């Protein structure tokens, strides 16, 4: 039983894990510096270990998501044995509450959970960023109207608002994507607008306006290149929020529904094992945590770089 594990053993495990992570990150960075062309190699050289660890993890997740059917030993929804089988043997990580292979479902989870979160973020980002930039450039009543709407939508806490909307529209994957995209787009709007506002007051924008340039040129050529760095960082952060929200909803049983393999609902469905000292349910939860940590490490480095370059 896990209960007998003393605290100092846990500390040792943690230290070993930390060391392995640092070593992998170092090896990865060295490999990138050696094998990639000039620009990428130069970028990698300036990366701290935490960021290269993050980049490595993200790449692994993307690989697993893309090639899930080839990696996974069983089918996503295939019942392969008795329920709650222990680790080892044919089933690397045992089986779940319905007797499906845990390892297989973890791999498919990368495809489903990450894919859905990515699509949602993309949706939220496109809507929020386009409207935010527009509000900043056009100004006047359009800005006023959009900002007030966003203020009101943001006056309700995100998860609560999501729960309310899902009650009304019913819980389905499409509804969840739309609801979370709507809620998160308000946050993207705020950021995009404030970033663009700082750019719009620059003299080069005034010069372009006085030249008679149209809205499209102003946004695409003058503002977007300067807003790119904070917006990309925001995309990373937003992905984390969306990913965590979707996982939370799935965990609550209101998000991605079985039999689709999804990390949040896998934690929920196998949570009873925890009370017996089995850490299997921690695996999908850990998979979620690891990816958000990785993305946050990379974003943190990007933000640090952006603020450093300003000086």
């Amino acid at each position, binding site marked *: 039983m*896990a209960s007998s594990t003393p605290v100092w053993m846990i500390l040792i495990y943690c230290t070993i894990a930390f060391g392995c992570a640092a070593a992998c990150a170092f090896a990865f960075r060295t490999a990138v510096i050696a094998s990639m062309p000039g620009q990428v190699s130069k970028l990698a050289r300036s990366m701290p270990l935490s960021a290269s660890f993050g980049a490595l993890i993200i790449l692994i997740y993307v690989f697993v998501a893309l090639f899930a059917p080839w990696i996974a030993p069983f089918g996503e929804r295939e019942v392969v044995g008795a329920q709650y089988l222990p680790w080892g043997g044919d089933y690397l990580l045992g089986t779940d509450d319905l007797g499906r292979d845990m390892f297989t479902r973890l791999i498919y989870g990368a495809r489903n959970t990450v894919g859905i979160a990515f699509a949602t973020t993309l949706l939220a980002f496109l809507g929020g960023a386009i409207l935010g930039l527009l509000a900043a450039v056009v100004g006047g009543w359009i800005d006023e109207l959009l900002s007030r709407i966003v203020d009101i939508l943001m006056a309700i806490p995100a998860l*609560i608002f999501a*729960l309310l909307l899902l009650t009304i529209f019913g819980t389905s994957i499409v509804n969840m994507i739309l609801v979370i995209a709507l809620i998160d787009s308000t946050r993207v709007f705020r950021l995009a607008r404030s970033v663009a506002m700082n750019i719009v007051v620059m003299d080069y924008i005034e010069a372009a306006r006085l030249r008679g340039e149209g809205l499209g040129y102003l946004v695409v050529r003058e503002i977007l290149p300067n807003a790119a760095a904070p917006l990309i960082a925001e995309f990373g952060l937003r992905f984390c929020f969306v990913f965590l929200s979707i996982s939370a909803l799935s965990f609550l049983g209101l998000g991605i529904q079985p039999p689709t393999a999804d990390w949040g609902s896998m934690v929920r469905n196998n949570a009873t094992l925890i009370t017996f000292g089995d850490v299997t349910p921690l695996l999908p939860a850990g998979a979620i945590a690891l990816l*958000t940590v990785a993305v946050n490490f990379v974003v943190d480095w990007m933000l640090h770089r952006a603020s450093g370059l300003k000086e």
Partner: protein
Amino acid sequence: MPFWDGQSRGDVLQSIWIMIARRLGLGLVTLFVVSLLIFAAVEMLPGDIAEEILGQSATPETVAAFRRELGLDLPSYQRYLAWLGGILQGDFGTSLANGRPISDLIAGRLSNTLFLALYAAAISVPLAISLGILVSLYRNSLFDRAVNLITLSSISFPEFFVAYILIVLLSQSGYFPSLATLSPGATFAETLYRTFLPALTLTLVVTAHMMRMTRAAIINLLASPYIEMARLKGLSPGRIIVKHALPNAFAPIINVIALNLAYLITGVVVVEVVFVYPGLGQLMVDSVAKRDIPVVQAAALIFACAYVLLNLTADVLSTLSNPRLIHTR
């Protein structure tokens, strides 16, 4: 205009009150619009709520009767006024799932949720603020970098991950109970003990956030020219922090706290489910699954109110701590 130029101290105080009254007014308007939004969201329901709830098999007569029962035959503004009027008198309507008055369902659970949030806040706020200040004083040191790595990781963890890790670590070995059951007769100390794990989960999640924000606010402050001036006056480091940095740090720190307490409100939902804690969040999640719309509306309204009021309080407090606003020209 400064008050010694013909303007009395009373006038200055009055202008602060006017400013605060305006913020409060704005907060009320926000609350009103939020209630409107929560009500209107149900109106956007595709199809008829009665048919939706009763299902395909319902006869037209039962649907009509149900509509009358819900007041759906009335125009929507009348229903909104009735709904809002009821809430202002403490009547949230009846649950669709079990027909009980919602206010009965909510009453005990609301205080449980508030208790848990306050419990977590009482640990996390002092902890996070003092750690945040400490880290900002030793910025760019190895200690700072390690803390950055740890806090960055822990803000990335989903709440249920933290919760289950704590259960494995602290509950399996029998230190703390994993089910946060509340019994009416329990002493305060006993309640604190039983709800320790959920409170600790919330604390861990929020503290990292709060620390990072406090650190950023303080570092931003320490870079200002008046802090350099204080150093060049030969003041001791302690005095610089206490007399020169802190009075200007209130506003950012208040905002950090408010933001995170607001975050607690959301976080509480998941944590309550993990620990089977009888709070408002769990009620809301259950009701969403049952599509018990009136209960969800009531819970959403309460959470939103708490959120708006928190932000409003922070706004007013940071106004009060800003000398530029208090001592207007």
